[in-house]
């Protein structure tokens, strides 16, 4: 077995391990009366052991892929997002040993699983490095950034638990609405994974030619039935669906098609879940959060920002500037990815100041943590896929 396929198998093992560990953490939470009594629960110990095994195989995936390609596997959307999932689990393990709370695992691991699932929808083959990425800084800058971002993400997980516990789901309120909106977004990601996998299994492909925004001819392949056509498109695959509408040159109709398919699939999935359970998803998850200690969750939410913020600064700003100076001759160029890294940094700086000086704790702080995660995800997904810039490599 070659290194590349060994690597793929190791990733699969860790994916399954995280799923199984989630169940054990669920058992630990369910079997306990409160935070104090479940901190050393047997099921929790099994859960963390399986999580660590999963993390080690995940690390194995990373190392073997590095060996196979000769460069740090952080050069495209699949590799970066998978590494993010890995570090998220790593950050969870770190905080578990600081605070020993299975509640965190019960929510962090499924999020890691969804992130890995999402990553797997992008091209997974090993790509050789383009000249701009051929540098030791690829490993240094991206690994540090990913570690920083994943520790910051743990803050959002703790925040989510806090909110699930404290937002009153029995009567309508703005907080209830937004909490359910967060859940809906997660279901949409599942919708993307589901629809993408379905068409991939079916082997759907449709080829088009079109005119790009610099008025040059270009080619594109759809993996979903094309709902929207590219600018001045011409179908090259006989029998493929005729797009409903043609888009202007600035809109990537192929990505829009993927997006709409995912939203539709996700919405249907959400409606089915609502029909089965007859309750908002957030209230469905509430019992799992109820036993978590509020002060502890608040503390974890704050502490993970404190731990993650310096790492993020180092990786996403300082190392980024050093590398940008080597590769692009300037340390800062207001490229969208750079700007969004700065926005993330400013946001968490505001978070810390509000918390320190204005006493924003509890729900307010939890909401800020969730918004911070949304910004990180926006930078990872939207800035890569929608806003074109120097960092668009997926």
């Amino acid at each position, binding site marked *: 077995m070659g290194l590349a396929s060994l690597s793929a198998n190791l990733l699969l093992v860790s994916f399954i391990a995280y799923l199984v560990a989630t169940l054990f953490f669920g058992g630990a939470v369910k079997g306990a009366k409160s935070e104090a009594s479940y901190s050393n629960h047997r099921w929790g110990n099994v859960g963390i052991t399986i999580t660590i095994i999963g993390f080690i195989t995940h690390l194995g995936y990373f190392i073997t892929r590095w060996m196979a390609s000769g460069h740090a596997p952080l050069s495209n959307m699949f590799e970066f997002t998978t590494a993010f999932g890995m570090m998220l689990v790593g950050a969870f393990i770190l905080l578990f040993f600081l605070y020993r709370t299975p509640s965190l695992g019960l929510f962090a691991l499924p999020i890691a699983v969804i992130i890995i699932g999402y990553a797997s929808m992008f091209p997974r083959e090993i790509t050789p490095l383009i000249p701009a990425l051929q540098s030791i800084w690829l490993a240094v800058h991206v690994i540090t950034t990913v570690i920083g971002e994943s520790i910051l993400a743990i803050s959002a997980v703790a925040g989510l638990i806090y909110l699930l516990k404290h937002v009153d789901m029995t009567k309508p309120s703005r907080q209830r609405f937004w909490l359910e909106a967060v859940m809906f977004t997660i279901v949409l990601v599942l919708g993307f994974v589901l629809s993408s996998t379905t068409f991939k299994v079916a082997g759907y492909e449709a080829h088009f030619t079109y005119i790009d925004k610099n008025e040059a001819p270009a080619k594109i392949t759809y993996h979903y039935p094309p709902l929207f056509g590219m600018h001045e498109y011409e179908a090259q695959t006989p029998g493929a669906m005729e797009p409903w509408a043609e888009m202007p040159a600035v809109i990537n109709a192929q990505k829009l098609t993927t997006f709409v398919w995912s939203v539709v699939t996700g919405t249907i999935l959400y409606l089915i879940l609502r029909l089965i359970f007859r309750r908002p998803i957030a209230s469905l998850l509430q019992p799992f959060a109820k036993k978590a200690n509020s002060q502890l969750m608040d503390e974890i939410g704050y*502490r993970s920002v404190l731990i993650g913020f310096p790492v993020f600064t180092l990786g996403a700003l300082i190392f980024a500037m050093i590398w940008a100076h080597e590769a692009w001759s300037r340390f800062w160029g207001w490229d969208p990815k750079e700007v969004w890294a700065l926005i993330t940094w400013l946001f968490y700086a505001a978070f810390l100041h509000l918390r320190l000086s204005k006493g924003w704790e509890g729900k307010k702080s939890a909401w800020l943590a969730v918004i911070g995660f949304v910004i990180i995800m926006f930078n990872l997904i939207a800035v890569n896929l929608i806003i074109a810039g120097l960092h668009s490599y997926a």
Partner: protein
Amino acid sequence: MSKIKCQCGHDNPFGTVLCEKCGRPMTEEAKKSEVVDMRYEGSARRSQTYKRSIIDKIWNFFSSVKVGVGIIIAVLATSAIGTLFPQKLYVPVNQDSPAELLAYYERLYGIIGTLYYKLGFYDMYNSWWFKILIGMLGTSIIIASVDRVIPLYKSLKKQRTKRHASFMKRQRIYGAGLSGDAGSSLAKAEEKLKNMKYNVKTEDGAILAEKNRFSRWGPYVNHTGLIIFLFGVLLRGIPGFYVDQTMWIREGELRSIPGAPDYYLENKDFILETYSKEEADEVFGEAIDRVGTIVKSYQTDVSLYKKKEDSLPGSTDLEHVKDYPIVVNKPLKFDGYNIFQMDYRLAELKSMTMQLIEKKTGKSFGQFTIDLDDPEGVYELNDGARVDLIGYYADYDGVENGEPVSKSPIPNNPAFIFDMITPEKPNGEKSFVAIRQTLETEENAYQVKFVSAETRDISGLTIRKDKTLYILLLGGLIFMIGVIQGSYWNHRRIWIQKGEGEELLIAAHTNKNWFSLKKDLNAVKEFADLPKYEDRLDNESSSEEEEGEK
């Protein structure tokens, strides 16, 4: 302003909330509160004390964290708007032509694009208002830090070991109760706390255990780093601190380096390499199949020369400094300058070789080569024939008003007018020759025919010199030290003192991470048999503990 005298005898500066020495509440508000606000130790801050003059008002505005956060949010939100559409710099049109820029945004983004341009968002990071925002952020960082760090330093320095009971009672973590033997409990607590690496001070039946006070300075250290960084950015406006030039240099050319006087660069070769399927083998094969060609490297082999020091001004007496292959991520470095591989153009025409023939017989009078950068004008051939180049259009773009026109001096599409002088036609015949076409005013007997062309590549290089980089790096380093100092350690204090009779009072405070503080406190409590305490902001875990004990 008058001082406020505390009952303990200490003179506090005007505006103090908690006595610097014993901690007694000094204001009505503090006296009424259950858990006292311990931020900045209740010290007198300028911004909270003086509110009269205009300077006070400006000071108070910028010292407010609320205002600071407001500025942060404003920078954040406006920065986000700037990423909606590409910034001017990344737009592939003439940067100096407002009309072309406007047309670009209008064509691609319609009305919103026009608006984006008109409102200046297309170049917003260089706009005056964005710079003002950054300036305000810097001001806020300086004033807010100075307003807090000095009083905080003073009151931490002056703090007394023995606190007044009213101070203890108002801490978030507080406990009071009888102990079997208060004296031995205190001694044991002291021992345990010392083991736990606390700094322990004692005074008249009271203990103050303190740890990691240095972490309180973290925010001020990191703010200093930020200010140094912003200062470095400001410096680049000063001439000489910062050079940013570009140069296009053809293969074989030797040119002076713009922005770097006395230095010359020769472009020996430009090489563009792509990943080939063979070398990529099975690992990359799949990716290359999907995407097509993937570039492996852009490389310019150069020689660097320096003008000899004793040479006369204007002379070109050069000294070879070094040869270097410039690739992306590996700039050429010399004397504070960096030269980066940024761009390229492949296969620009360098010279064209032609021959003169007699149309009827096909007889050739020989070949001649036209250097497209510097055409000679007259080319002598065999048998007394010669060709005069009487018109050269490097980038031929059709005929206007009966005259051929060239749209640029770059030989993208060269065209020539030749005068062919032969023994048979001594007055010459005129012919217009462009790529794949020959025009004649009347039927000629002779013809200039294209034989071959030579091409060369051009490298686009960027030259930078940035004296501010070390200042920026220093700022970054200091920021990192400060942010780590403030985030990875926390300042913990535990007060234990005798109350009435055998009663013991305990209180504790930390600037963050209460969980670990309580762990420490529990260890001491167990060892020294201290009274129970409560965390007055966490009702759940105390009730849980009771549950656990049941």
